[in-house]
């Protein structure tokens, strides 16, 4: 494998862990409240967060926590986004279907999130990234297979870094496993020039 992990972030079981360190945790909250509190913990000013669905909020928070103490400056299309996801936008699809079934007017703000790849759009907009992005639906997460995709994106010259991994949610069940990776040994090569 020709990539190396720079940082990793997991969000599960009411905890946010970055590079092995627990950065945020709170017990006995429903997911929507957990997400709001995790956002406020970052002291960000990004009101659009509250308009996102849970899938996007998880992807957004995972990325923000992952990059929180990162000193790399990304420019233009340095970063490719590559995400795996199991249940697509089912959580929001169900919400949208519920509004239809109730016979009330559907919500445009709900409807726009009935696609799972919107989560990558939210990350790209926030960070002003214009690089490649790839979303693969699959039943579960396998790091080795994700790393192959990331490796391809980097080794083919599409990006210097790849950020992504697994973001999945339905109702209050969720899991986030994100990585920021780069080409293996890239720092050594730069040093030796």
């Amino acid at each position, binding site marked *: 494998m020709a990539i190396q992990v720079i940082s990793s972030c997991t969000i599960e079981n009411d905890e946010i862990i970055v590079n092995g360190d627990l950065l945020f945790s709170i017990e006995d909250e429903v997911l929507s409240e957990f997400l709001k509190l995790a956002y406020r913990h970052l002291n960000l000013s990004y*009101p659009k967060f*509250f*308009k996102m669905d849970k899938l996007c909020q998880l992807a957004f928070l995972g990325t923000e926590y992952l990059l929180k103490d990162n000193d790399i400056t990304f420019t233009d299309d340095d970063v490719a986004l590559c995400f795996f996801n199991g249940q697509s936008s089912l959580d929001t699809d169900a919400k949208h279907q519920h509004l239809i079934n109730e016979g*009330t007017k559907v919500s*445009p*703000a709900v409807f*726009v999130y009935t696609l799972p790849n919107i989560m990558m759009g939210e990350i790209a907009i926030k960070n002003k990234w214009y690089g490649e992005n790839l979303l693969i639906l699959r039943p579960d997460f396998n790091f080795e297979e994700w790393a192959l995709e990331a490796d391809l994106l980097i080794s083919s010259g599409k990006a210097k870094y790849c950020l992504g991994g697994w973001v999945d949610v339905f109702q209050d069940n969720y899991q986030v496993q994100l990585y920021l990776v780069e080409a293996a040994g890239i720092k050594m090569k730069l040093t030796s020039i």
Partner: protein
Amino acid sequence: MSLQEEIKKHLIDQLNLEDLTPEDIADDQPLFGDAGIGLDSIDALEIIVMLDNNFGVVLQNPEQGREVFKSVNTLADYIVKSRS
């Protein structure tokens, strides 16, 4: 509760403006753009739904949106005119 206050409460609720309270929105403050409270095109669609659901007012001509959605005051004026 004044009509303006009612509109603000619905805007905050419908548009998930969690960081704002009705007191944070001035009656004549622009709703869109950098000088305003930062609403976007999806929010404009939500306002159309909100007007219909909560005030029974249908925006007859989408071209009017730019004027009607300028501020809480312009929304209130439109609701009053549409009801009369």
